[in-house]
């Protein structure tokens, strides 16, 4: 096994995540793209942990998974709140911070 395969895959996933955040307007797709980018970094960390043969990288991945769970809870709560006030999942409808503040 060559570690470069893992690096190519992680780079591909991170790029797909960036493309999803930049080009889509659905709030859920943006949220899942952010998660995809975080997960690709998890893959890089796990690969380096295996390459060096010690567990520190894996522990960072475990902590990252907990941080991803926290991020997901907050993001979903915000999506629910924005959907209640705007009746739309379009990110263009909440492009101004003052509207977001009114929604909260």
């Amino acid at each position, binding site marked *: *096994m*060559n*570690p*470069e*395969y*893992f*690096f*190519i*895959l992680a*780079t591909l*996933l*991170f*790029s*797909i995540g*960036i*493309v999803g955040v*930049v*080009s*889509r*307007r*659905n709030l*859920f*797709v943006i949220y*899942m793209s952010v*998660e*995809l980018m975080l*997960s690709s970094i*998890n*893959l890089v960390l*796990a690969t*380096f*942990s*295996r*390459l*060096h*043969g010690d*567990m520190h990288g*894996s*522990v960072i*991945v475990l*902590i990252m*998974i*907990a*941080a*991803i*769970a*926290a991020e*997901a*809870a*907050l993001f*979903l*709560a*915000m*999506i*629910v709140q924005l959907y209640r006030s705007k*009746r*739309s*999942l379009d990110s*263009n409808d909440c492009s101004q911070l003052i509207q977001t503040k009114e929604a*909260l």
Partner: protein
Amino acid sequence: MGRRRVVLELSIFFILALFLSGGSLGMILFKQTLYSAFSFLLAMLALAGMFALLDNSFLFLAQIMVSVGAVIVLSLMVIVSLNAKDDNLPDEEHKFKWVIVSSILVIPFSLLMYKALQSTHLKFEETVEGYGSLRMMGHTLFTDWVLPFEIVSILLLAAMVGAIAIARKEKSQ
């Protein structure tokens, strides 16, 4: 014996990589949110398989239990309970044009990231005894990483309180 193992590992890797990249591509290309979430679930399951391929059995379990079992199932439940109709979704008529343009713009960054990762020139070697086991993971977590672990517990508590405060219905309504 060694050659057969390498071929087996490579084929497992490519099958998982197919699911991972196909799932994430489907996630950003589907119009319906529920289909996006299902392809993302597929991608996260394949990522758990990648952790198993990297001899990290505990991360495999944690990925399935937390990322797939909790986070994505929670997203699916929110998507289903919002029940957004077609006219509540954004109408992205130029979606594929935007995707292609932003992919071209992202290519230089991807090359930079790949070069930076690949410049380490490390190779996979035989691991030490017990690598990836729960015992070694717990030992590392509770000796060198105690403070981050405690901080993460506070972060989770704060996120829980924040999520409840944001999503709560106002009493006046």
